């Protein structure tokens, strides 16, 4: 991976030479100028330090408006541009592009919003004009600290690593290869296919699972762009988006292509062991193939059960059998990684509904093997050699667990979630039983029937028509299973049927099928390697369930299929294709461009305290152990600025939102000397996160909700960037009140930036109280993008509250204390008065 610097030619500082700022104030065809006196504002702005041009325009965003800005930049050699117009969400990009066309770095541009935040919300024209000028003055002050920035460009290695060779991994790999992208599949088992290979018929199409799987595997195996490693376990990983390096350990297969007669090798093996593929319903040898037509079509040795007796070696004349191979390691370079390791089925504990206790109690997955004509019973419904006359299905085994009823899992947590696929699978299986074995009675014990998906309900309908008996149990009193005391059937299920008003019933069944839920695999390795996070359900957690359902928090890592939660086959393939689409987009661009507003650590100031590592929602910060300091990976940083507010040494800065810039802005908002007396206007600084609260303020504007002109908005990307120091600065510079508004908890554009705000602000409130600042002067609230009404109400309330309290006027307080404005006295060398004299 290569990355261009954030700053063109490392130019971090100001543009060489004097500041030449251009201020362009939009009339917006009266939308602004009907309320704001644009002429006054333009005239006042012209007198601000550094301003070379100050002018108004009817429509800045129009072609002539943009042309006028470009012309002024060229003719007046402007090196900073400010446009005061509508919301930046509408036209910031428009003006940035215009500035760039005129040959100026587009980040030397500052957009301020005097329409949605001023003219549309302030009724009093004089107040509106003053507020507009304050905002422009603040922008001018901020502009002095702007630096030319360039977008980050990250090069992407044109290949993808797919972890997992089940339906999701295979689908993703096939799709990517179809887009001409090189793919490596890493599967930990010796054979591809995952759980799908074990299924018999799948809903909602009723197809044989292998009708889907086999052609897919053939396609993947034949594709020259796809490399497959089976028996391959993840060993270690380094790198970030664009350039991941994953080391994989290849466990020897024991059998090579040279083997002249693999079947003879299998037949010669004396070591019989449990056949995992048939879920323990049959046996196989220690050298084995799970089923005919598996891929690779070459047996593998199960090292846990192999005694290395050499029988297979001899059966093959010593060719193609390698009993003493050592593991090999390969490093796989990739620009992106798709994680598709799938899930496990819940294994009932011994005695749970008679499982393990009675051979007639099996799981739904085992039932699927029994129904398979190629399965352990060749498709006959036999248990213990006995023909089955009645079957019971019991739902929610290992799912929807409840405290006090179910025993927690090994990690102490209950599986509270619904496993999503079991209801429909049960209906589908019951349907097959009724169709293939019409004499067999079927009972269904359920809490709810959740046949949610397309065509799922029709299975439910069918089995109802086919005479399956439904019994609804109370989850707080789950059914009990025991051997049938009368000996009529193998078992009896005792339960209360809520459908018949709580009648206690006993249902004799020859076979009880537990509709076992789905559980996450052990994710420890993935967490170690890729810093993935898991939810309370132990499945991997996507970065945002709505917006980015197939992405992990760290860029370049994608999720495909049921590694993320229970899914059926169609859902898994859809998720796999969606993940492939993300990876394909990443690879096909070759490089990605990202906003330059990243954080950067000043090495000479960082003490390596590691606190920022806790702050970053994206793990973009690591600690360089050699130099004991933090480093921001600009390829991973998304620019929320939460670390900047966190660093207790101010050793981290964010491009575009440095302390210097924000403080200059705040100071300029408060620069005007307030007029005390009857016309006194409270001065309130409002720090707003861009994604929710700023948009909420825009929303108040578009809805023309009027509120007082007293709250001046300072924009940051995330409320996590709002350093408590900014709040005390604002007060000490004369603010009468401060507001901090961010996205609601859970809505943060940066996942958890606002969690930091949630902790800091109450602490700030306590500090302020100790300094004697009334709690009404500081307000911290969550405002969403839709809550324009709330925003306007908050400003109204805040203004009224502060007005009632009167001026805070901290500068005069500091004067009274005797420290002036908190800065040093006159420079050394000037006359110092002194009363003590020599005798």
């Amino acid at each position, binding site marked *: 991976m290569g990355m261009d610097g954030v700053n063109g030619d490392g130019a971090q500082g100001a543009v060489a030479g004097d500041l030449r700022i251009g201020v362009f104030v939009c009339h917006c065809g009266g939308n602004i100028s009907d309320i704001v006196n644009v002429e006054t504002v333009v005239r006042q702005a012209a007198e601000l330090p550094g301003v070379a041009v100050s002018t108004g325009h009817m429509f800045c965003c129009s072609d002539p408006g943009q042309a006028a800005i470009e012309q002024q930049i060229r003719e007046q050699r402007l090196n900073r541009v400010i446009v005061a117009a509508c919301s930046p969400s*509408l036209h910031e990009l428009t003006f940035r592009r215009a500035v760039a066309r005129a040959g100026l770095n587009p980040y030397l541009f500052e957009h301020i919003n005097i329409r949605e935040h001023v003219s549309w919300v302030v009724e009093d024209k004089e107040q509106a004009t003053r507020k507009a000028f304050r905002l422009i003055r603040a922008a001018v002050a901020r502009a002095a600290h702007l630096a030319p920035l360039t977008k980050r460009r990250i090069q992407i290695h044109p290949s993808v690593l797919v972890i997992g060779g089940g339906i999701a991994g295979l689908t993703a790999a096939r799709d990517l290869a179809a887009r001409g992208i090189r793919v490596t599949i890493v599967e930990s088992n010796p054979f591809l296919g995952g759980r799908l290979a074990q299924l018999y018929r799948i809903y909602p199409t009723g*197809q044989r699972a292998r009708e889907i799987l086999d052609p897919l595997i053939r396609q993947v195996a034949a594709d020259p762009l796809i490399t497959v490693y089976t028996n391959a376990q993840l060993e270690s990983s380094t790198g970030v988006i664009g350039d991941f390096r994953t080391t994989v350990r290849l466990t020897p297969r024991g059998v090579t292509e040279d083997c002249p007669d693999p079947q003879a090798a299998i037949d010669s093996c004396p070591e019989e062991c449990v056949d995992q593929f048939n879920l323990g319903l049959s046996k196989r040898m220690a050298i084995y193939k799970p089923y005919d037509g598996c891929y690779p079509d070459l047996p593998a040795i199960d090292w846990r059960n192999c005694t290395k007796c050499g029988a297979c070696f001899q059966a093959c004349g010593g060719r193609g059998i390698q009993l003493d191979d050592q593991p090999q390691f390969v490093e796989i370079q990739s620009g992106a990684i798709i994680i598709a390791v799938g899930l496990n089925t819940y294994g009932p504990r011994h005695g749970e509904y008679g499982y393990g206790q009675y051979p007639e109690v099996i799981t739904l997955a085992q039932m699927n093997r029994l129904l398979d004509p190629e399965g352990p019973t060749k498709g006959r419904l036999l248990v213990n050699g006995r023909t089955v006359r009645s079957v019971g299905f019991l739902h929610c085994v290992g799912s929807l667990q409840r405290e006090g009823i179910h025993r927690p899992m090994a990690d102490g947590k209950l599986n509270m979630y619904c496993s999503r696929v079991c209801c429909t699978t049960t209906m589908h299986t019951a349907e097959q039983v009724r169709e293939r074995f019409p004499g067999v009675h079927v009972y269904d014990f359920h809490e709810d029937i959740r046949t949610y998906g397309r065509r799922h309900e029709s299975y439910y309908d069918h089995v109802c028509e086919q005479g399956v008996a439904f019994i609804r149990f109370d989850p707080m009193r789950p059914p009990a299973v025991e051997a049938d005391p009368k000996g009529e059937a193998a078992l009896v299920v005792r339960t209360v049927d809520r459908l018949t008003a709580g009648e206690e019933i006993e249902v004799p069944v020859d076979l009880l099928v537990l509709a076992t839920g789905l559980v996450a695999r052990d994710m420890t390795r993935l967490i170690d390697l890729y810093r993935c996070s898991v939810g309370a359900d132990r499945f991997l957690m996507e970065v945002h*369930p709505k917006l980015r359902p197939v992405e992990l928090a760290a860029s370049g890592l994608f999720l495909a299929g049921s590694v993320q939660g229970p899914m059926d086959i169609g859902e898994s393939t859809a998720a796999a294709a969606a993940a492939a*689409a993300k990876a394909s987009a990443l690879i096909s661009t070759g490089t990605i461009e990202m906003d330059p507003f990243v954080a950067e650590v000043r090495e000479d100031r960082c003490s390596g305290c590691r606190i920022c590592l806790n702050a970053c929602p994206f793990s973009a910060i690591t600690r360089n152990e050699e130099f004991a300091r933090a480093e921001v990976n600009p390829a991973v940083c998304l620019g929320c600025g939460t670390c900047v507010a966190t660093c207790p040494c101010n050793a981290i800065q964010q491009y575009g939102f440095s302390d210097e810039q924000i403080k200059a802005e705040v100071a300029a908002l408060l620069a005007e000397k307030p007029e005390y007396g009857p016309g006194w206007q409270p001065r309130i600084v409002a720090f707003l996160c861009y994604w929710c609260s700023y948009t909420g303020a825009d929303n108040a504007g578009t809805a023309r909700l009027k509120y007082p002109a007293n709250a001046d908005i300072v924009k940051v990307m995330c409320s996590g960037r709002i350093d408590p120091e900014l709040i005390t600065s604002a007060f000490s510079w004369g603010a009468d009140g401060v507001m901090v508004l961010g996205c609601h908890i*859970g809505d943060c554009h940066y996942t958890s930036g606002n969690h930091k705000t949630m902790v800091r602000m109450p602490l700030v409130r306590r500090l302020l109280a100790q300094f004697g600042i009334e709690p009404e002067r500081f307000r911290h609230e969550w405002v969403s993008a839709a809550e324009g009404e709330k925003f306007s109400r908050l400003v109204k309330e805040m203004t009224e509250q502060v007005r009632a309290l009167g001026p805070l006027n901290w500068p005069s307080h500091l004067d009274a204390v005797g420290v002036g404005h908190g800065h040093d006295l006159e420079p050394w060398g000037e006359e110092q008065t002194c009363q003590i004299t020599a005798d």
Partner: protein
Amino acid sequence: MAEIKQEYDGLVLGAGIAGMQAALDLAGQGFDVLLVERAPSIGGVMVGLNKVFPTLDCSSCICTPRMAEVAHHERITLLTYTELKHLERTARGFSVTLVKKPRYVVEEDCIGCAKCELACNVVVPHEFDYGLGAHAAVYIPHGNAIPQVAVLDPQYCMFDGACARACPTDCIDFTQQPEEINVQAGAVILATGLKLVPLDVKKEYGGGKYVNVMNPLAMERLQSPNGPYGHVMRPSDGKIPRSIAYVQCAGSRDKSIGVPYCSRICCMYALKQGIMIRQHLPETEVTIYHMDIRAFGKGYEQFYRRAVGEGIRVVKAKVARITEEPNKDLKLRVELIDEGGRVAEIRHDLVVLSQGVIPGWKPDGAAPVRIDEDGFFLIPEMAARPANSSHEGVFVAGVATGPKDIPDAIVEAGAAAMEAAMYLGRSQARAGGVQ
């Protein structure tokens, strides 16, 4: 309106969350996409929702950034207020005929200032608020609309020219006519979204005549901070409801009206709306009458339990009939299943019918895709290729292929984009193009 080219790699029909995502995922892979939306703004159903389950994030907070991304994407061309007239395969892909409806506003000149709206003297029921709110006869679709451009509804116009007089950019154009647009597209993604089962088929629930029997999307608007009332109130008289009933499967799992399937989202939105109501109006009782609670998705069961914990009454029952009292209260005749089928009559201030989900658009010959017996697009290989329609080169995403929640719609949109990209790659390779 952006410059419309002659040819696009992909055409995406429908700019709800699925269509937007499909367009982004296709454009992200380097293809030029034309995104067509029949409403005056993109965003679909999602942008009008209050919160989304189970995380309770603000819907517009997560939808509007995506809308902005679509609008600013250099490979996506947006065509709003436009409908598909015809789509057919040709040797070179698809020949597409679109009809752009007249906005009577010049899109590129309108600055979204709403001066026309404020000047207009007529108010009209607002479709975005399901008729509960109003807009002027010329109006900006809503606060978060993209594009922020006015549209004039000629049905109610009084022709006094107030809008044109107020417009600072002289962009009201009374001469506009429906405009036919012909483009070529290499592949097509249909993301045409949903409608709800019309109320009139449920005669036993009033057939749409009872003013306080409301549709769940309208309830969503009532709960939204930018909704028509700003509060949850009942439409008959503005009363803050003290008891609200949700009748589940009102038009789902009902063969008699041709909707035998489960609409998949109703359980969750009923629980979600219940939680939101209880948060704002802790004294208001919420009762959900249901057949099964289908909380099947990630975090859904936990959400269900939370809702019950917050005092929402979840009652397994069949609602046989709703009748309206003179004061517009509603009386529900209910068969309580867990009480052995006891029949009770229960009064509520407001009833939300969890109306079933049906396809938002039918091709009716406009596009060569087959419809399945459930009314949604036929998917020949539902397990292996869930985004492929019956017609080569036409892909489908979102609720157009069956009811689904937002994450599933987004995932499927990604899948449709991937399928379309693969198809485009193949056809470009056949045509000898560089790929």
